[in-house]
């Protein structure tokens, strides 16, 4: 009887040991970063190596596995979509918790009203680059806004009412403001932004940055119109669309998307 009892105890102990073997946990990859490839299209992920024994890492895009690697680092070559990435470590059938997510999804700001330079309303617009990257309107008559404004609207003529007549609106780099015939932009360290010609496919990657594809202003001559931009200081690409120009009060609607990864030209949304 004593032998049977001892055997039962030993069996239970062994069963416990074996059972606990499947519950091994892995550390999730940490410090994941996302950068743009030199072509402005590839997405490069990097993270700290997991120090414990693992077989490798699994890379996910929009919650679907898209590849595995044995060392830290992965390049998603020529993606056509934007979205969220995360990584897990794995050992055999065991997988760690996911890393924090990083994203290429453009930050969208819904349409807001903006005004031609001499009309009675804000003509400047800028993105909260140090925060949530949403856009807001600002006055171009206050030099204190020179660090906040990324573009403004002008018809490049000094008219007291504002409005598109007799000229189209333009999306202008703030750095052009002090030269504007409107004559209301004070001296300041206004930022520089470059603009594409009108974009025909608002889901396609933006043009490669060059002196023949980005300019100091672009005319808003059709309704609606899509115009890409490049922020000179930080290297962010993005897309604007304008519609509903109003000659009576000098207003127009603007909606924007900005790519949160510097240097990445993907703007699909």
């Amino acid at each position, binding site marked *: 009887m004593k032998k049977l009892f001892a055997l039962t105890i030993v069996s239970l102990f062994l069963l416990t040991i074996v059972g606990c073997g499947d519950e091994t946990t892995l550390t999730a990859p940490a410090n994941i970063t996302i950068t743009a490839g030199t072509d402005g299209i590839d997405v490069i992920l990097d993270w700290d190596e997991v120090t414990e024994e693992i077989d490798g890492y699994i890379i996910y895009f929009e919650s679907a596995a898209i590849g595995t690697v044995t060392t830290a680092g992965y390049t998603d070559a020529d993606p056509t979509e934007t979205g969220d990435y995360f990584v897990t470590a794995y050992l055999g059938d065991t997988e760690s918790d996911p890393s924090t997510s990083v994203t290429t999804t453009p930050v969208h700001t819904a349409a807001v009203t903006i005004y031609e330079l001499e009309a009675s309303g804000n003509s400047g617009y800028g993105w909260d680059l140090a925060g949530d990257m949403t856009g807001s309107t600002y006055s171009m008559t206050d030099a204190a806004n020179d660090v906040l404004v990324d573009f403004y609207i002008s018809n*490049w*003529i000094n008219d007291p009412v504002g409005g598109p007549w*007799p*000229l189209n609106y*333009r999306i202008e780099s703030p750095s*052009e403001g002090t*030269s504007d*015939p409107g004559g209301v932009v004070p001296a300041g360290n206004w930022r520089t932004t*470059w603009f594409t010609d009108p974009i025909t496919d608002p889901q396609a990657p933006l043009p490669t*940055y*060059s*002196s*023949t*594809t*980005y*300019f*100091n*202003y672009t005319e808003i001559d059709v309704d609606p119109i899509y115009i890409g931009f*490049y922020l*000179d200081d930080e290297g962010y690409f993005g897309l604007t669309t304008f519609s509903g120009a109003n000659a009576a009060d000098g207003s127009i609607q603007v909606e924007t998307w900005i790519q949160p990864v510097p240097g990445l030209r993907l703007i699909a949304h």
Partner: protein
Amino acid sequence: MRKMALLLVAVVAVMIIGCQPPEGMTGGVSQEAFDTLKMQVETMQTDLDNVHAALDQLIEDYNALKAKVDKGAAPVPKPPAPPEQPRKGAK
């Protein structure tokens, strides 16, 4: 014979009476009157030609004006051009 003589006298009398010009007319149109009349006719012809020429000019002017009106109002003068802004490429 006497009857014959009377008849001859009667015929001569009728001839003389019948050949007399109508009362108030001295006989035919003088060259001077004809020339005057001709001059008046020529003057009237010249006047008529002038009227025709004036009418042609009037019709021409009317058609030109009509063509302008049919094309619409004359264009409004353009506002003064704003100063040009050079479109610079990115750095």
